[in-house]
């Protein structure tokens, strides 16, 4: 019996608005406990939620990039449950009228393109954080995260392997980053994933009992949790035992899942329309304006880089796979229009430095204009191409490109006398090659160029050598 996994996802992504979704507190990550709170997000009596327009704009953008239908009429509901990280004892969310319905996203897995369907995307508020204090045998509640806008992307059960899920999650993360609606910082919990898994024989009519693994917040834990759950459920079924429908927690340390105590024993959330938040009606014009404001998606950038800039598909993918890198590239090209040279040097050298941990892609400290200037110096023969690496290293430490070239004495000095003398010497030393060239065998030019370059040791730009050598050979 071959068991086939069927997987559906609920992805939570925090939106990068300035203020929280229902109050004016800052929506930034972190801060001293309860320093980014007010009576509204702390659930004090008498306070009321007031919806942030930007959060609505962002979920609409998220809907468009995932090919969803945007509801012209949308409203908010209360999801009632008691938990100390939820000060109002209800989460404002959306039930029957989410902002986005339907939709799909294509992902490539092992060279094959698959279409994953989106069921819905709705807007809700994040909950606070609990810190467990063992010495005092209490938990401490910090509400800074309460009210940070969150979208929940619910997929159809279209996934059949951990690899597909990871590829999809990465794609969604990148698209949300490009759309400018989520920073995708997994280490800060900006995106979390709940995974529903069931096993059944392939082509079977009914799916098996499903379990839900909650709150996975890294690609690695998503991958491992799915693989473990497939293994665990397979073992159970093959041993003739039953899979219990339950909510699970994935333990990163052990790599295993375990049953999670439920938030509300009965799971009866008693959803009902939130009377404090009026429903919204969108006009076609408003939706069109929001759609038109969506920045270019990574797939479009790849297309532009390969078609317009002549960058290889592989390099274009590397450049666009990290939004901050792609943005850096775009700014650099604006400063100096040599996309191919800039792109190649980013892929070859800057990415290497990033992978070495010398500089962060997300918190890029390099000035793209100065980076472009570095490329320009090499392209115009002011420095040698090899010198770029040394200079880049200095730039990471905060120097400008010119300062580094100066300090390391990397300027190419145009000494025409030395150049002429050297070329004369090389020509005198290689009379046969000179003869061959003059008889039309121009392919020996490369050999003569090489000899000159070696002798000059970077004291002249290749372009200058080329010009003078050609001149002398034609005499």
């Amino acid at each position, binding site marked *: 019996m071959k068991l086939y996994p069927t997987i559906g996802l609920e992805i939570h992504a925090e939106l990068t608005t300035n203020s929280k979704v229902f109050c004016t507190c800052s929506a930034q990550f972190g801060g001293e406990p309860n320093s980014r709170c007010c*009576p*509204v997000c*702390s*659930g*004090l*009596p*008498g*306070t*009321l*939620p*007031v*919806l942030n327009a930007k959060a609505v704009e962002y979920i609409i953008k998220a809907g468009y990039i995932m090919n969803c239908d945007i509801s012209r009429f949308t409203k908010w509901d*209360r999801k*009632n449950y*008691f*938990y*100390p990280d939820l*000060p*109002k*004892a*209800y989460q404002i969310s959306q039930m029957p009228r989410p902002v986005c319905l339907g939709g799909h996203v294509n992902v490539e897995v092992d060279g094959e393109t698959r279409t994953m369907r989106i069921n819905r995307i709705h807007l809700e508020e994040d909950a606070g954080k609990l810190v467990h204090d063992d010495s005092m045998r209490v938990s401490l*509640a910090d509400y800074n995260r309460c009210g940070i806008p969150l979208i929940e992307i619910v997929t159809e059960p279209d996934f059949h392997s951990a690899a597909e899920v990871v590829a999809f999650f990465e794609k969604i993360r990148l698209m949300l980053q490009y759309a400018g609606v989520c920073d995708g910082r997994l280490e800060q919990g900006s995106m979390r994933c709940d995974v529903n898994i069931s096993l059944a024989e392939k082509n079977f009519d009914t799916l098996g009992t499903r379990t839900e693994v909650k709150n996975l917040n890294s690609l690695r834990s998503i991958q491992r949790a799915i693989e473990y759950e497939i293994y665990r459920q397979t073992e159970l079924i093959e041993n003739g035992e039953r899979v219990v429908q339950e909510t699970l927690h994935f333990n990163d340390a052990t790599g295993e899942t375990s049953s999670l105590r439920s938030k509300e024993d009965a799971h*009866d959330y*008693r*959803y*009902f329309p939130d*009377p*404090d*938040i*009026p429903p919204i009606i969108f006009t076609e014009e408003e939706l069109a304006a929001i759609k038109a404001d969506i920045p270019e998606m990574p797939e479009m950038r790849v297309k532009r880089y390969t078609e317009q800039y002549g960058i290889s598909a592989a390099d274009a993918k590397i450049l666009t796979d990290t939004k901050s890198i792609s943005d850096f590239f775009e700014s650099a090209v604006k400063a100096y229009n040599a996309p191919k040279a800039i792109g190649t040097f980013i892929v070859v050298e800057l990415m290497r430095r990033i992978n070495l941990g010398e500089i962060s892609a997300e918190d890029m400290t390099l000035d793209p204009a100065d980076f472009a200037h570095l490329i320009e110096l090499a392209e115009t023969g002011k420095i040698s191409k090899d010198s770029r690496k040394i200079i880049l290293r200095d730039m990471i430490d905060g120097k400008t490109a010119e300062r580094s070239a100066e300090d390391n004495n990397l300027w190419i000095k145009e000494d025409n006398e030395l150049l002429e003398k050297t070329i004369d010497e090389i020509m005198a030393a290689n009379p046969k090659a000179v003869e061959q060239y003059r008889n039309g065998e121009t392919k020996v030019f490369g050999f003569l160029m090489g000899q000159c370059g070696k002798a000059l040791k970077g004291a002249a730009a290749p372009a200058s050598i080329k010009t003078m050598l050609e001149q002398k050979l034609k005499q």
Partner: protein
Amino acid sequence: MELKQQTLSSLRAMLDSKQISATELCKEYTDRIKQKDGELQSFITLCEDEALANAKKADELIAKGEAKPLTGIPFAVKDNICTDGIRTTCASKMLESFIPPYDACVTEKLKGENYVLLGKVSMDEFAMGGSTQTGAFARTKNPFDLNRVPGGSSGGSAAAVSAAFAPAAIGSDTGGSIRQPASFCGVTGLKPTYGRVSRYGLVAFASSLDQIGPIANNAADCGVVLNAICGKDSRDATSVNMPAEDFTAKLGNDIKGMKIALPDEFFSDSTDEEVKNAVLSAAKEYEKLGAELVKCSMSSLKYAVSAYYLIASAEAASNLSRFDGIKYGLRGEGRTFEEMIRDSRTRGFGNEVKRRILLGNYALSSGYYDAYYRKALALKQQIIREYSQIFGTADVILTPTAPTVAYKIGEQETDPVKMYLADICTVTVNIASLPAISTPCGYNKDGMPIGMSLIGKKWDEATLIQTADAFEKDFDRRYSNV
């Protein structure tokens, strides 16, 4: 000074002409409260020192000629409206020591006029009730008969005005909580259109129905207070941005030709005979003034109480979930979170509040939602349709405010079903988001006040105030013996 006869305009005139200072006026009221409220029990928290300090400030403004309509006017505020630094209990053990660190929009606006807050007045616990006997503290008596209830839930506000402990008070109305106590205590209460007054800082009972409004000695005074507290508030998304208007502007205008509708169902056998007669004779007075009486019907009225209690309790169950002992309020004991919140809530809430939470969760729980909560929402839409039909041919609707006069303490407030049914005359107004005003229209054989309600079109408070005022002019108003 005889405080009972005073209105906001008479007090304004005396303050502005320096016949009396705000400080003296404040003292008159606080002395009277201290002397007589021991019996009446309308105040939960008296703010004498703050009141005198504010009165002093008011005197300075008056001296500089910078007085606004409510500068130096003493007020009583219902204890479910948050007051910065002043205890706000909702008459519940749960919030016995809760001191809000912020003001409600309404108290902020009144502070902006430099009003004088005398104190926080009693109510039914969390505004759930019609007797002001369900609270943990200050079970208020009716100023006309201390053996009777003052009505509720804004019983403290109505009793305070009726006993001349304050010339005006702020209440809240979810299903009649301003109008019914005003009726029982023989004063005037206005429930504005939903969205007219910001709910920010009003401890929520049923968010889709709650509205803050004034209780005062007459309709004109209600208009003056509404002028000060109305308006769109950026902190309440359900408050509505309406063009500025003076709600007293239509006072004195002729009501000739005005069409007043009397829906049959409000005058059924379940309404007390004396009450019915008083309201019908008020209708005759209107006819004499040139108004035209229109017969009409509201066939869904018999479902209204049920629909109201389903909606209100569902919202209340959710709104009151935040009281868990962690952030504020009574903190129970327990080794686990579950034990602790159950203990907090069990000890903090009274019986009526608990029943409504149970009912609300029943109406929302899976398997019952469609049959109860959703059906109640359908009825809400039906009631709105019936009102708009009536308003197709009428300018205002006239009904009794309550089926009876104030009843004896202990008579019915312990029977929930009886209590709920007594709200029949008022709940549809909240369901339909309409404005309504209750003003005295007679007294029964025991001398207890009878109130009539005028219900208006959305945003048409000015006409209600005008119409109520037209009746008040020739009405022989009586004052309580307190």
